[in-house]
């Protein structure tokens, strides 16, 4: 890792020295070694606290939409982030020419919950290599196999390598197996209608409507969300069953053909509510029906934006 961080630092330094970008979005060290935070470096800032490891939870593409289009942004992107950036470029949220993508092939994001469950919150040290993750808690070292503590979305990841980065740091990894991505949806579909509804109900109705999932998602950039409308409201904005169900259905639906399965929404949820089973299903349908996968290039419009008369045979009745 330290080698990669050194490469990253010198690349960022080069970008500022050669005046390629105005700002670089990356990660920095924070108080707890378990929680690196998003960082926004400008020319002249010290890169001393720059961090990169498998604990970096956020999807950095989330911050693209907070800058004016003229700002030249350098951004550290892993597989999913590079696809989110592409999807945002397609949706005209930032011009491609004002972006510089620093790609890093991703070995997956570690799910903090899986670690903290076995150690405790106050972790004082963290190390990782290809296979092992080790954390220090109360002077005791705990070792984990990487695959045991990866976030579920990352276990299912198909494209760990950044798509069309401007520079790639580190060696490309083998692509993931689409069959594994399928498994989660498949096992849900295998349940009966009743079981599926009960599962959905149990997950959705635990929601406390904090909207952390929305804030963490790069594709949720609307300035006014449907749940924030003043009266008359689209949905109940309380934690009533109808309100939480509507939130979960529509939040997921608005991601159709846009979600890049990064899992940032699930990682952000304080209630540990599962929601990628919804977006993964929608993505799978988009792939099967329209041969479309979000973010695989920065020009193709998602299916809901590219309807045409070829669909006419699908009008039944």
């Amino acid at each position, binding site marked *: 890792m330290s080698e990669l961080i050194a490469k990253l630092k010198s690349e960022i330094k080069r970008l500022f020295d050669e005046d390629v970008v105005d700002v670089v979005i990356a990660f920095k060290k924070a108080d707890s070694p378990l929680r690196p935070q998003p960082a926004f470096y400008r020319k002249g800032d010290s890169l001393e606290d720059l961090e990169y490891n498998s604990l970096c939870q956020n999807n950095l593409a989330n911050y693209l939409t907070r800058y004016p289009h003229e700002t030249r942004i350098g951004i550290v992107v892993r597989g999913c982030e590079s696809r989110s950036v592409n999807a945002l470029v397609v949706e005209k949220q930032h011009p491609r020419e004002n972006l510089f993508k620093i790609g890093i092939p991703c070995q997956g994001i570690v799910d903090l919950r899986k670690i903290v469950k076995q150690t405790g919150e106050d972790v004082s040290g963290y190390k990782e290599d290809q296979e092992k993750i080790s954390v220090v808690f109360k002077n005791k070292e705990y070792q984990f196999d990487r695959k045991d503590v990866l976030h579920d979305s990352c276990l299912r990841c198909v494209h760990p390598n950044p798509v069309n980065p401007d520079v790639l740091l580190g060696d490309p990894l083998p692509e993931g197996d689409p069959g594994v991505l399928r498994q989660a949806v498949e096992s*849900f*579909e295998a349940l009966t*209608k*009743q*079981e*599926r*509804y*009960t599962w*959905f*109900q149990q997950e959705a*109705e635990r929601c406390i409507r904090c909207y952390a999932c929305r804030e963490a998602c790069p594709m949720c950039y609307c300035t006014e969300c*449907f749940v924030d409308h003043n*009266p*008359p*409201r*689209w*949905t*109940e904005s309380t934690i*009533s*069953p*109808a*309100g939480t*169900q*509507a939130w979960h*259905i*529509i939040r*997921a*639906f608005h991601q*159709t053909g846009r979600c890049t399965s990064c899992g940032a929404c699930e990682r952000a949820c304080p209630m540990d509510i599962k929601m990628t089973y*919804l977006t993964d*299903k*929608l993505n799978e*349908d*988009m792939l099967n029906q329209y041969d479309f996968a979000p973010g695989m290039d920065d020009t193709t419009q998602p*299916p*809901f934006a590219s*309807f*045409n*008369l070829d*669909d*006419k045979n*699908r*009008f*039944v*009745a």
Partner: protein
Amino acid sequence: METKPKIALFQCQWCLYSEPDQYWVDHNLPPSIRLMKVSCTGRINTLHILNAIQGGADGVMISGCRPEKCHFKEGNLSALRQHEEFLNLLDYIGYERDRVRFVWLDLQDRGRIQQELADFENKLQELSTANTLATRINAPEGEVHV
């Protein structure tokens, strides 16, 4: 006593119904069917459908124009892609997708809308009432949801 299923009918205002059919829809709908006229099926947001369901409708029918007959050229095409997928999602979480039905009508389809509504009503009576999604608390008559 058996009560009739409640149906929310969204009708595109450009839908070319024959005159007597349109008259019937506008003036003689049974009380169990509520009419919402929209400017185009493309104007219908999936939230309208969900709202109808959560507002207590047993079924939602959407009547639009046939392809190439859309007043706005491709509003119905956009509607089809989104609404079909929305039904896939509802079905996935265990909702009975047959509770939402599309009909694409043309001027030649005289008397068809009555027939479609009657069929739909029968279908709804057959369906189980499990998993129908939580309903919202209804606003008092004349007031809006907060």
